[in-house]
């Protein structure tokens, strides 16, 4: 299976060059890529085994392996990905012929194909997730194909954000299950279903996985990105956004059904899917643009699939999936042909094309017939399976299924008929309109024809669908049949056809009113836009508050954090706080300390820089007197020298500088004062705690003992500086050198831009 992926990736990487061969015709040759992969798949599936496992070590330390599994379900999906892929590549080669962006497009399309194939074949869930994200990414690049249009960029980003956000939830859910199961293999999870379900956090994990699936598969309320994704070129809409990628979520749900289907939370998929289906059918009904109609009907199909998987109806689900992929792929490509040839995008803008586009019409009718569930197309089997399943699950499920299927059938007939009947009209002059060539029509004609063939010979479909249903846990799927006799499902099916007819009749009459009624003012998409807007506002607001550009505020926040952290630790952790004891007697150090304090306050009060510098010098001298009192003469001498030098230097510099100005208001200064007093106070309190602790055994004894005999110096401070801790001194020398260099660089030459060009 790795070989298949390698073939497609190799095709993708070389696609930009191949596309340019033969004067830009090389893109047609790329059809060979999915064909080769399809042959490989066929050879692999022809074996006897019900499933083929293939695994390569990748990241053993993380239990991640390149493990693949080919069973009935992945075979069905892989066949769709590659089979439809063949026609899509051919279609795209023609559709974008001569476009200078075609080489990139073909490469991205093939890359998507590889990602999608990997997704359906993966057995390791991390591997599955990697391919999952790659499909989102390639989808992003393809939706944004027309990247100079703001609308395409927005639609691309919307799709990416929704699917990747869901993907993140999925990742969390998969990891949660992985940690519970002690394995990251789907094939091993299946064996531990009951254990997984009984875990206390399995509800959360399931919710996260389902969030991932429903965003990818465009379920309400995350459906809105899909209709917008129609900004992509038609081959992309037909392939990613109807036949394959959007089915990934449904596919994963189906994959997990045998493991987690018994979880009580699984039932919620039923109302979710049913609501999505009805809602999307309604949205399709009020659309005019062909691709929009098709997109909403796709959402409806995805809702139906979710509904079926929620009910655990394996056979109906895979049958519906297959039928939908065939007719919807065809219809999208045909809509693309209509737009390509006539220039029309809206249904109301085109009509009477039956003579100009006869093949297109024929194929469209075939596809629509299958979609609406008309005898003897394969769609009717799918629909009756759906209705039969629904009958077992209550009246309202049946109603939802009948109504949504009816509306969608009617709308798809609208798409397949209205452009072709009546008087000829189109944006382009009717004389200039010709039928598309074989490259564009091969796909839709083949897919539509297949829909009829599988309906007439259901045994063919059984070959794929029965193993797929088995993979989903269906014990003994019955063989498909076109005619089940007159039963409840048949009656319901007739009902949906009646609704379809009604929709056909109503649509042109209500379109104007429905389209302009202002429904768009509400709904999830508005919520998405609004939350993006709100997010921007919050981002700007928070950032403006925090990163205000005011150094004063930065220092204040830093100080405040210090106070909070120290105070909370002091009060909440460890022993009781030791408070300082003050004696009433006046001693020399107290007088000195008071003097220093008074001077410090004075320094704050003054505005004149020169006086401030002098007073700060005086503060320093006061401190050195304190050192002297506590018998540290060398420290005092050092301090005196430093104070003298800095004061002289400061005075020399300040002499040349403008006067300081007060920029802050009195209230600000008041707040600063409180903060400063608190900060200083808390640090003093911490110091007090440390002083109250018993003195430790210090390393200084050792140093004193060895200073003379081993360090050969009488002055222990000197020995420490140049011998015991010479590395520190070296570092400090570097610091001084750096300060000098920095000062030189700052003073040297006039301002300029930092770089030569950039």
């Amino acid at each position, binding site marked *: 299976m790795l070989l298949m992926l390698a073939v497609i990736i190799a095709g993708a990487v070389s696609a930009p060059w191949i596309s340019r061969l033969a004067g830009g015709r090389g893109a047609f040759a790329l059809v060979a890529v999915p064909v080769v992969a399809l042959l490989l798949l066929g050879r692999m599936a022809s074996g006897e085994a019900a499933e083929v496992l293939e695994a390569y070590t990748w990241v*053993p330390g993380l239990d991640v392996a390149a493990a693949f599994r080919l069973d009935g379900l992945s075979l069905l999906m892989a066949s769709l990905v590659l089979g439809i892929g063949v026609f899509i590549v051919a279609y795209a080669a023609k559709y974008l012929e001569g476009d200078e962006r075609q080489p990139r497009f073909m490469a991205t399309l093939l890359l998507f194909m590889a990602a999608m194939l990997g997704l359906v074949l993966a057995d390791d869930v991390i591997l599955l997730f990697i391919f999952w994200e790659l499909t989102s990414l390639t989808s992003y690049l393809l939706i944004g194909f027309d990247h100079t249009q703001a609308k395409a960029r927005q639609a691309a980003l919307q799709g990416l954000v929704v699917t990747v956000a869901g993907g993140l939830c999925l990742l969390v859910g998969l990891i949660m299950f992985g940690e519970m199961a002690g394995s990251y293999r789907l094939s091993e999870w299946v064996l531990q279903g009951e254990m997984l379900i009984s875990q206390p956090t399995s509800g959360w994990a399931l919710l996260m996985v389902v969030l991932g699936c429903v965003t990818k598969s465009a379920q309400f309320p995350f459906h809105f990105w899909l209709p917008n994704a129609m900004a992509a070129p038609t081959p992309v809409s037909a392939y990613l956004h109807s036949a394959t990628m959007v089915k990934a979520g449904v596919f994963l749900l189906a994959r997990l059904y045998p493991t987690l289907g018994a979880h009580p939370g699984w039932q919620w998929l039923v109302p979710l899917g049913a609501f999505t289906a009805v809602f999307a059918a309604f949205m399709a009904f009020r659309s005019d643009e062909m691709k929009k109609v098709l997109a909403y009907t796709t959402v409806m199909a995805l809702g139906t699939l979710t509904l079926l998987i929620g009910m655990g109806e394996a056979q109906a689900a895979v049958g519906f999936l297959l039928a939908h992929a065939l007719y919807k792929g065809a219809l999208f490509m045909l809509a693309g042909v209509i737009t390509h040839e006539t220039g029309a995008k809206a249904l109301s803008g085109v009509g009477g094309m039956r003579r100009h586009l006869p093949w297109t019409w024929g194929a469209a009718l075939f596809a629509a017939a299958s979609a609406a569930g008309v005898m003897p197309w394969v769609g009717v089997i799918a629909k009756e399976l759906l209705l039969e399943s629904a009958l077992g699950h209550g009246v309202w499920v049946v109603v939802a299924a009948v109504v949504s299927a009816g509306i969608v059938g009617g709308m798809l007939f609208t798409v397949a008929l209205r452009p072709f009947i009546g008087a000829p009209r189109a944006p382009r002059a009717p004389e200039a309109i010709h039928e598309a060539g074989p490259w564009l029509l091969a796909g839709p004609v083949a897919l539509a024809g297949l829909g009829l063939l599988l309906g007439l010979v259901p045994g063919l479909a059984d070959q794929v669908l029965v193993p797929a249903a088995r993979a989903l846990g269906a014990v003994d799927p019955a063989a498909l049949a076109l005619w089940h006799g007159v039963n409840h499902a048949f009656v319901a099916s007739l009902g949906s056809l009646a609704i379809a007819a009604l929709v056909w009749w109503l649509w042109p009459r209500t379109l104007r009113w429905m389209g302009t009624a202002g429904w768009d003012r509400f709904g999830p998409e508005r919520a998405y836009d609004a939350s993006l807007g709100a997010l921007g506002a919050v981002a700007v607001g928070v950032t403006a508050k925090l990163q205000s550009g005011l150094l004063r505020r930065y220092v204040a926040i830093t100080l405040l954090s210090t106070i909070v952290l120290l105070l909370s630790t002091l009060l909440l952790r460890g022993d009781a706080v030791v408070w300082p004891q003050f004696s009433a007697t006046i001693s020399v150090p107290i007088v000195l300390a008071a003097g220093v304090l008074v001077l410090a306050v004075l320094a704050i009060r003054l505005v004149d820089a020169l006086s401030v510098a002098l007073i700060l010098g005086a503060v320093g001298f006061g401190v050195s007197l304190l050192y002297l009192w506590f018998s540290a003469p060398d420290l005092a001498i050092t301090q005196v020298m430093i104070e003298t030098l800095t004061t002289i230097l400061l005075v020399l510099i300040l002499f040349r500088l403008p006067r300081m100005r007060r920029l802050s208001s009195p209230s600000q200064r008041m707040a600063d004062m409180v903060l400063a007093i608190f900060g200083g106070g808390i640090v003093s309190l911490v110091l007090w705690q440390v002083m109250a602790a018993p003195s*430790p055994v210090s390393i200084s004894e050792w140093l004193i003992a060895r200073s003379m005999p081993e360090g050969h110096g009488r002055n222990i401070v000197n020995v420490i500086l140049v011998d015991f801790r010479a590395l520190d001194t070296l570092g400090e020398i570097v610091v001084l050198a750096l300060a000098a260099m*920095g000062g030189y660089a700052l003073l040297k030459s006039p301002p300029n831009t930092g770089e030569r060009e950039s």
Partner: protein
Amino acid sequence: MSLLVALPFLIPMVAGSVSLLAWPSRRAQRAIAVVGTAGQLIAAVVLLVVVWNDGIQVLAAGAWPAPYGITLATDLLSALMVLMTGITGFAAALYSLPTISSRMERNGYYPLMHMLLAGVAGVFLTTDLFNLYVWFEILLLASFALLAMGQERAQMAGALKYVVLNLFSSAMFLSALGLLYGLAGTLNMADLAVKLPALDDGGRVTLVSMLFMLAFSIKAASFPLFFWLPASYHTAPVAVSALFAGLLTKVGVYSLYRTFTLVFTEDVPWTHGWLQVSAGFTMVVGALGALAQTDIRRTFAFLHVSQIGYMLMGLALFTPIALAAGVFYFAHHIIMKSNLFFLSGVIYRLGGSYRRDELGGLWTARPWLSLVFLVPALSLCGIPPLSGFWGKLLIVRAGVDAGSGWLLAAVLVTSVLTLLAVMRIWADVFWKAAPQDRPVRRAPLPVMLWVVTVGLAAGTLWIGFTVEPLWALAERASAQLLDPSAYIEAVLSPELP
């Protein structure tokens, strides 16, 4: 006992001094820049290999045994960090060659760069907290000079905030050192690890450790102390901001990792609980900040803050997988983030602006460059199979294992915000058509810019596709952090020569 341990900072120190002596000759300085950084890189590679094969390496400076003299030591974490220093330094030196103005070269750009690298390597290698302070001072002054030497108004404003807030951190660090020495009578970290548990200190060490946490958190630019980073990173020359992006905050995060696994583990629920809070807020607030920017370098600076949160989360959860995830993220992040800053410089060169609303058209005009940009950009978003995906995967796994729901929620929110911020850059700078008055420049790029950006992108791809080598390293490094007995023993009883 091996001199090898000191080489990663001795080589740039010597190179810096020689470069200073070669002041008049710009050509000599440029040659020394390449040779010196390459030398550091080679030393770092050899060191990592030796540590991987033979275990922790120790060097007692001046042969004075720990805890009395200064002892250098390197375990896997510090060897990995030194290697990252070497890579970033070498890349920055190459990138500097065609981009740094001759005026800056004449004013001592290269000596400052060497000394910065020496300071960073020193931080990763020392076992002595006071010595750590000295290395911090070296890199603070070197980075300040590099920031300010352009002398533009914005640079001076940025540099001022940078230096004031970092001096605040230094003052706190120094006070904390004094207090800790008063409690324990030693500042060697291994010695502290032995002596502190035996001390009946009534929670005082935890109290002092909060000061260390604050000082290092300022360096690491975590919430709510990150202001200096977005204020300054975008003002420096590109090579400098890439160097900073790779290394400066890592120094703070590394110090937190070292001290809060080796020394301050007395009250883990409290200290690491605060780190969790900080990590969560750092992620989200940083990403929000990124969304509010139009300047691409500022966007990346804020995202950098955000990702410091991921790294802190690894330490804060304090489990084997979480620490390993953090270490993995370190390495991946340095390569990716410095590349993004380098690429911003290339974008400026082509489009003449750093603002995404004034740029456009690069996807059409420069497809190869766009692909190179996509590698670190998508890695930043955590798109598989790039390195950032594995980082995110590991962090999520650590969060799931620790059952930390709200941190996981923060990771998810941050990821989406990051995606939005990065993809807006992609959409505006690459997809949008170039503005009429500002077409994309057609001139070929200097080859060095290709070498640096493609090389680092290849690194991101390599980590993403192989995963196992870096993960194995991260796992072993994490095991060393959680069981520091080997480190302590190696430091306190090295065989003397």
